[in-house]
């Protein structure tokens, strides 16, 4: 059966679309800067030991909120935080949960959205009805509210020993309310692609449903989805921070940028601006990089808007 399917027009078109996009992106200076920023942040998340040699869990209450006297040197290069832990260490070690959470949520949301979207669009009928109803239900509950509801259920019930335990609950809550956008895009793209000549032809040639879905429809559906992924990652990072400020995101003593920010906003008004400015700077820089990257990607993948 497989020898019957010659390289489809779709595959060729897709290939040139992606390489076109890549070529366009490569030339844009803002994309290059954003990529550098993102690489830096990812490195920090993966290898915190490169940036600090202090243990963020060694904290002396008496040393709380020491302002950094000499920048980037001395025992505490960025001073100490509200608990007397080394601030540079908490900042660096807080990167990993933030990034890991954002990436895992986006992966889960995209996968769930793609699968459900293709199923709904391809089979129609009951599958479509059920999935569309589920979409409606999740869309009418605003993400933050839904996350608040779920997180409150589990608050304090999980330990914060390992990375996975730390981000498990926020991951669940954010993914549960994050897949709908991808599902909608995929469903629309599937409906459109389903009736294109080459798909119908593939069907006539006896290709299995699974083959059609993943070989012919998915490459088309993935384009609009990819275009919004970077921006959505930025959005997840912001939402995590919002949840932390509300006191229900990643739970202390585990840290994330959101947790640092929620402590930082408390103390910034009292003159400890550095406790607020550093995590804010990191967060805005990262989100901005993701958004810029996403913006360029959207342009590149949608030639109409160029």
């Amino acid at each position, binding site marked *: 059966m497989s020898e019957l399917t010659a390289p489809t027009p779709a595959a060729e078109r897709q290939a040139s679309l992606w390489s076109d996009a890549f070529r366009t992106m490569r030339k844009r200076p803002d994309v290059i800067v954003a990529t550098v920023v993102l690489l830096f942040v990812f490195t920090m998340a993966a290898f915190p030991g490169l940036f600090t040699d202090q243990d963020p869990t060694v904290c002396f209450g008496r040393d709380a909120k020491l302002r950094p006297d000499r920048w980037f040197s001395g025992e505490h290069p960025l001073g100490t935080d509200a608990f007397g832990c080394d601030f540079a260490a908490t900042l660096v070690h807080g990167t990993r949960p933030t990034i890991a959470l954002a990436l895992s949520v986006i992966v889960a949301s995209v996968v769930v959205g793609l699968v459900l979207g293709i199923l709904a669009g391809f089979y129609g009928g009951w599958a479509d009805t059920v999935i569309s*109803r589920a979409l409606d239900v999740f869309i009418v509950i605003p993400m933050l509210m839904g996350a608040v509801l779920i997180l409150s259920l589990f608050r304090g019930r999980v330990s914060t020993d390992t990375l996975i335990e730390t981000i498990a609950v926020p991951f669940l809550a954010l993914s549960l309310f994050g897949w709908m956008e991808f599902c909608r895009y995929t469903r629309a793209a599937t409906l459109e692609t389903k009736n294109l000549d080459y798909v119908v032809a593939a069907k006539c040639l006896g290709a299995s449903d699974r083959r059609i879905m993943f070989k012919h429809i998915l490459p088309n559906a993935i384009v609009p989805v990819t275009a919004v992924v970077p921006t959505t990652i930025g959005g997840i990072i912001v939402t995590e921070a919002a949840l932390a400020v509300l006191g229900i995101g990643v739970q202390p003593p585990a840290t994330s940028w959101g947790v640092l920010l929620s402590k930082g906003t408390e103390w910034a008004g009292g003159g400890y601006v550095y406790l607020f400015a550093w995590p804010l700077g990191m967060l*805005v820089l990262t*989100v901005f990089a993701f958004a*810029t990257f996403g*913006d360029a990607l959207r342009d590149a993948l949608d030639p109409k808007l160029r």
Partner: protein
Amino acid sequence: MGRYVIRRLLQALLTLGIVLFLLHYLTALSVQIRGNPALLFFGGDRTPDPNMLAQVERLYGLDNKCYERVGDPCLSPFVDRLQNFVQGDFGTTLNGNRDVGQLLGIYIPNTLRLFIFATITLVVVSMVLGTWAARHRGKFIDHTVRGTTILADSIPVFLILLSYVYIVAVPLTRWARDIWGTESFMGQVFRPNYNPDYPWTTIIIPGIIVGTVGLASMTRLIRASQLENLGSDFVRTAKAKGLKPMRITIVHVIRNSLIPIVTGIGFLFAFMLSGAVLTEGVMGIPGMGRMIFQAVQRQEGNLVIVGLTVSAVVVVFVSLIVDLLYAALDPRIRYE
């Protein structure tokens, strides 16, 4: 058209029914997992007499044994609740035993006022920026507008608010009061907290700040649709007729760019409600977002269900209206 509306309404009802049940189940689960909020009635640190506790559970409507079994969907309280809702009885709060219907009457207008200012800000700013960027497509201004709006969107709105309250509001209010006096509009508008004596004035600033949520995507939408229109046949015709560029922009381009604005607002509505949680919390506005958040924290199950259902109803109907407006604005769209 009529059949389409009826079908959409029926779908909306089904959606709301599912939402109601899910919310009921989650709040029941919350009582089962997190513990019975009746204990809070006694202030906490002291051990209440078991009989007194049982009385309070009855008062709270949490005396059904199903609230002690984790995972039990508590169907009979759900049916009771639906019956009460149908009769227009939204129940009472746990703390202070207040009528929820009355509370909504206080909270909804505050949130609506916030949304009015937010929507105005969003539409006006993104309209101006989008149009400006489209007219200077590919030039420095286009890139600047785009970069700035993306940056504005990258800073979480609640941090802008917190910075405003902690850093800017107090000196600004003092300065304004020195010049215009305490009771004047200017003396009130910059206040760091909402004040029920000035329900419109003190909600302007938080409204404007909430309005920056989604600025980048909205500006982008408007820019794109204007570009499309600028390159369209009817604009070319207008140009050929020798109309002034200003007139072309206003009459032909902007009017035809209304469609994405309508869609955008409908889409952003749910986001704004999320934004309202933090905004209302930071500025002390007694509105729906803050009410729902506090209700979740305090396990006010009834308030959570009613509050989120109200917001769900609004979202459902806003999206229905958006779809209908879409057809009205764009003659190419027809609903069967």
